[in-house]
């Protein structure tokens, strides 16, 4: 057999292996987390606050972290949508296709997307110190919003860029102003907005380095924006570093809850993309 055919077979085999490795890692991670977390899971974990002696292995759960994460994720997703929809609309309707500003803006959001959350955290932390703020729910919400806005904008923009310009022309010819075409545009990029939202929620709920500086950690549920808030990833992280077995087990349970949430978001994202894409022009 000629060398080129041997080479072909060899590399084909290697490619199979590499692709299988991708599946292997997914299965390995989920299996490791779920098999360790399942045993430690109980209803108390997700329904109770940490009790006295929680960190030496006594009773309680991590409801504080679940609620804290929900607050931060919910608020920052809303804020993120409020900021990013106008920006995406502006870049795609007000600015022309070859606009210099649009190019620079896209580049900047791609770069911001690459900036690690620890840098956002450190930056927000210095701002908070400057204004005399303590670690708080508000701080966490702001830093997570900053973190997810680039993801929001870039993933919506990907969809908005494929938006047919003829539809805009049709709207203009009926006498609509640029701003009034927002109804047409929004309807067309709806699936993009939905997937971008799920993506951002996924990133927001999993962020640990940013909220560590800004939201802090607490055993109770925050009742105002100026109180610190616990978050799921930090609950996992702090309890993992404990030498006590029961506390570590709770970290595994929290890790499992977090993983399941992220998996659910990922599946929902797929479904939405598949379902809505057939209505697009």
């Amino acid at each position: 057999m000629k060398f080129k055919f041997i080479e072909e077979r060899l590399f084909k085999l290697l490619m199979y292996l590499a692709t299988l490795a991708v599946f292997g890692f997914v299965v390995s991670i989920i299996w490791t987390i779920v098999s360790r977390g399942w045993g430690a899971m109980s209803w108390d974990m997700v329904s109770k606050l940490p009790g006295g002696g929680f960190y030496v292995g006594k009773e309680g759960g991590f409801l504080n972290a679940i609620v804290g994460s929900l607050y931060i994720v919910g608020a920052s997703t809303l804020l993120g949508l409020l900021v990013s929809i106008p920006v995406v609309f502006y870049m795609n309707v007000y600015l022309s296709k070859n606009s210099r500003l649009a190019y620079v803006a896209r580049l900047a959001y791609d770069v911001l997307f690459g900036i690690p959350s620890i840098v956002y955290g450190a930056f927000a932390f210095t701002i908070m110190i400057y204004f005399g703020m303590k670690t708080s729910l508000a701080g966490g919400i702001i830093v997570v919003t900053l973190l997810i806005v680039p993801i929001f904008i870039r993933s919506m923009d990907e969809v908005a860029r494929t938006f047919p310009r003829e539809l805009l022309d049709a709207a203009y010819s009926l006498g609509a102003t640029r701003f009034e075409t927002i109804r047409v545009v929004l309807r067309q990029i709806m699936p993009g907005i939905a997937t971008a939202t799920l993506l951002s929620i996924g990133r927001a709920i999993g962020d640990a380095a940013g909220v560590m500086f800004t939201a802090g950690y607490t055993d109770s549920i925050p009742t105002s924006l100026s109180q610190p808030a616990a978050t799921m990833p930090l609950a996992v992280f702090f309890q993992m570093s404990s030498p006590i077995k029961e506390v570590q087990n709770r970290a595994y349970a929290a890790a499992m809850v977090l993983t399941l949430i992220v998996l659910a978001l990922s599946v929902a994202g797929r479904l939405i993309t598949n379902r809505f894409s057939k209505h697009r022009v």
Partner: protein
Amino acid sequence: MISLRALKDRTAGGVMFFLTIASLLLVVAMGVGLYFKSSPVLADHSLGELLFSSSWHPMKGEFGFLPFLMGTLWVTGIAVILFLPVALLAAIYLTEYARPAVRKYVFPALDILAGLPSVIYGVWGTLLIIPWISEWLAPHFVEFSTGYTALAGGVVLGVMILPLMVSLFIELFTSVPSELRDASTSLGATRWQTVKRVVLRKSVTGILAAVVLAVSRAFGETIAVLMVCGNLPEVPRSIFNACYPLPALIANNYGEMLSFPQYEAALMFAAMILFVVILLFNLISRIILYRMEKRFA
């Protein structure tokens, strides 16, 4: 006299323009803010001393970042060496060989890998990779290892940047015109020869840019690496040594730094190094990738 509708149109335009510019200014604000915050330590120490000294004694006012820079380089290097081939092969398979049905299963898997929070990777590394290194791999090479090593950090980071690399590569390979492939196969080249001589050669710049992007993602990864690297402020001598990457340093000391202005400035300097390096890497590779996109479009 302009109509109300036109007025609305203009005000909305103004507001949106402001929002766009404001988010652009965030990049500048971050750079300036971090620079000001790290200026106390920059005033007392020369840049060379900060970057190339390995003596890290914050209480004595000695801030040598070399161990942390080397730690970051080691874990990133290991991650890229181990996982770049995997990412390339998987991406080639998915674009050149696989039927669309296969992609339907692999893409969700990549989505999941990309979406899992970094703390989950940390737990996975602690539960699986660390025992594997300390009980199975390390005994073949060194006397004793806890498993909390640069290698563990590299493996965990590698899996984390794998989906990013694969999706960037897929985008690059699909943008190579199929006529070029047809020309190559019609001359009798096998598929792999076509990949090697046509597809890879056409996208070599893009591959470099994608790797740079993945590297900068790896530079900033914090929690996962913090959980598996061992965190000893020494320059690692082998892959079985503990290491202490920059982001881990910042995250580990965020509470105690407040009482020492110099210490705080030093940590902010660490954040600034990360910011500057990642900013440059991202700018360069994104501009290259944009160009590639345009060339074939």
